[in-house]
C-alpha cells in the first residue's frame, strides 16, 4: 500500500465520530474601540510608525525626508520614475535586490487589533521585495481598516492569490537572552502612511 493510502486508511479507522464544526459568531468580540487609534497603537507596539497624509502623491516626498541617505529605491506607485532607482524588468534574479534601501507599496487591508497589513502577489511585483528591503513603506486607505482578523479574512475570501502575507512591524528577534532586537532577517523599519 502506498504511504498515502496507508495514512488515509489509518486516519479513517482511528478518528473519532464526526463532531460539528463551530460557528464563528462575531458579536462576542466587539470591544467598541476606535479603528484608527487601535490600528496606530498596534503598529507602534509592533515596532512600526504610522503617519497620516492628505494624499498618496505626497508620500514619496515624505519618504525622501524620512530616509535622506537612501540610494536604492523602488515604489509600485504610478508616476514615481524619479524616485525609482531600479528597473524591475532588468532584474534577472531576486538576488539583485540585495541593496534595496527603501520600498514603497500599497496594501488593501489593515487590521486594527494587531496592526497587521496585507500584501499579496497583486500588490507586489516580486514576493521577496517587502522582506529584502531595508526600509518598508506601506500606503493604506483608512477605509481599508477592519477591526479583527475575522473581518480581514471576509475581505480576502475568494481572492485567488499565489502568495500573501500579514505583516506587522519590522522583522525582530529576542533569541539572545530575550532582549528584543529590531531587524532580524527582514526589514529594519516599517512606516505606514494612512490616506
Amino acid at each position, binding site marked *: 500500500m502506498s*504511504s498515502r493510502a496507508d*495514512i*488515509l486508511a*489509518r*486516519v479513517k479507522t*482511528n*478518528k*473519532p*465520530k*464526526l*463532531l*460539528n*464544526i*463551530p460557528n*464563528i459568531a462575531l458579536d*462576542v*468580540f466587539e*470591544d467598541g474601540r476606535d479603528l484608527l487609534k487601535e490600528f496606530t497603537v498596534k503598529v507602534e*507596539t*509592533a515596532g512600526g510608525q504610522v503617519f497620516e497624509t492628505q494624499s498618496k502623491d505626497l508620500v514619496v516626498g515624505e519618504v525622501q525626508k524620512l530616509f535622506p541617505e537612501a540610494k536604492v529605491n523602488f515604489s509600485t506607485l504610478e508616476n514615481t520614475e524619479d524616485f525609482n532607482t531600479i528597473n524591475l524588468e532588468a532584474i534577472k534574479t*531576486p*538576488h539583485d535586490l*540585495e541593496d534595496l534601501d527603501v520600498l514603497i507599496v500599497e496594501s488593501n487591508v489593515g*487590521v486594527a*487589533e*494587531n*496592526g*497587521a497589513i496585507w500584501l499579496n502577489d497583486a500588490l507586489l511585483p*516580486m*514576493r521577496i521585495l517587502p*522582506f*529584502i528591503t531595508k526600509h518598508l513603506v506601506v500606503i493604506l486607505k483608512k477605509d481599508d481598516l477592519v477591526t*479583527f*482578523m*475575522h473581518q*480581514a*479574512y471576509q475581505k*480576502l*475570501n475568494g481572492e485567488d492569490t*499565489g*502568495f*500573501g*502575507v*500579514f*505583516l*506587522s*512591524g519590522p*522583522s*525582530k528577534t529576542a*533569541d*539572545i*537572552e*530575550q*532582549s528584543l*532586537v529590531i*531587524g*532580524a*532577517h*527582514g*526589514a529594519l523599519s516599517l512606516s505606514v502612511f494612512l490616506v
Partner: protein
Amino acid sequence: MSHSKAATIFNKDEKKVNWHDKALWFVRHKRDKSVHSVEGWENLRNLGQGIKAHMLSNLDNYLIQFEEKALKNGVQVHWAKDGDEHNKIVHSILKEHNAKKVVKSKSMLTEECHLNPFLEADGIEVIDTDLGERIVQLAKEPPSHIVLPAIHKTKEEVDELFQEHLGTKPCGGDPQYLTGEARKHLREKFVNADAAITGVNFAIADTGGFVVCTNEGNADMGAHLAPVHIACMGIEKIIPKQEHLGVFLRLLGRSATGQHITTYSSHFRKPREGAKMHIVIVDNGRTEQLSRPDFRASLQCIRCGACMNTCPIYRRSGGHSYDATIPGPIGSILSPGKDLKKHSSLPFASTLCGSCSDVCPVKIDIHAQLYKWRQIITKEMKQPFVKKVSMEMMGKMFAKPSQFEKVGMVARWSLRNLPKSVINSKPNVWGRERDLPKGPKESFDEWYKNRKKNE
C-alpha cells in the same frame, strides 16, 4: 536518563536556573497582558478547540481535499509514513534539483525526523536560519523550547559561539551586535541557497494553501529566493477553511510571546514563476495518537509554547531535561505515545497544577492527560522497588485509621526531636535543598476533637 536526573544536571548552575525561570515567567506575563486585552478570549479558545476537534474527526477527508487543491495550485504533494520516509523524500527532491545548499526555517517536524543529520550525511549543507535555531545548531544542541530554541543559552555563551564560528569580535554578549552579525552571515546563506525548507503552521483544506509564521522573516527570505521550496507538515496541521485562520492567528502570537500577531504570517498557495513548491505530509505516529481517545486531543496543539512558559517544572528543569523534540507539558503527553519506555518519567515531571491547561489556546486538557499516562505507566512498567513497597505500605496505613494515627504521632515526634542529619538523610528526597517543618504537638484530628470538647 530520567527527567529528574537530567533536571539535576541543569540545576547545578543555580544562577542560570533562576534566570531561566524568571525569563519564561516574564513571557507568560506578556501573554497574560495581551490576552486580557482581547474581548471574548474564552470564546476564541472554545472556537480554536472546536475547530481542531472537528478537523480531527474528519481528517482523512480534509487531507484529500487539501491535496487536491494543492495539486491544482501547481504544488507537488508527498506522503510519508514516518520520519525516515520523510527524510528520504526531502533528500530525493533536493537530489532532483541538484541542491547542495539548503536554508531551513523553524520546523519542529524536521527536528522530530532528524532531517539535518540525514542530509548532512550526503554532503548537503543545511543551515537553520531562525536565530535561536542557528545558535543551537552551532552549539550542536537540540532546541530546548519550541518557540525560544536557545532560551537556555546566556548571551555570553552566544558571544563565544559566534566568535568561534562566525569570527565576530568579543562584545560581552551585546545582543544588538550579535544579531547584526547573524543577519549578515545568514543573508549570505539565503542569497546562495539552492533550496529552502520550511515548516507549516496551518494548512488550509479548502484552498490548498499553507501558512508559516515567523518574527524574523527567515521563512520568507528562504522561500522567495531559492528556486525550490519544500514545506514539511504533520497531518494534524490541517484546518478546514481559510476563515479559520482568523481564530488561530488571533490565538497563536498572543499565547506564544504576547505579540498580537507574529510579524510575518505568510500564506503560500502557488509557487512563484519559475520556482517549484513541494509539500511533504507526515504521519510519524500521529495516526496512532489519534486512535487513543484519552490522548487524541494532544493533536490539536498549535505549538505556541505557552504551556512550557507557565510550567513550574519546565521553568526550573530546562527543555533538554525532557530528552524529547517537544519538551514541557505537551511534550510529556506526546512523547510517551511514541515510546512509552523511553519517556516513562515525563508524565511525572509535573505538579498537576493545571496551569498548562489554563493557558492552552486550544484547550487541551494537558494535566488530565498527564495523570492518565501516569496510571498507564504505573500499571505497565516495573516500578522501582522502594516506590512500590512504600506505596503498598502507605495504602495499608491509610486503610486503617488507628495505624495512621500511630504513625503520625511517631512522625511528628521525630520531626521535633531527631537531629537534622537524621531527618534529611539520604532516603528522604523531600529533605534535599530544603528543611522540613517542625512537627506540631497534636494532629489535626486531635486538635479538632479538643476544640469540639471546649466549645
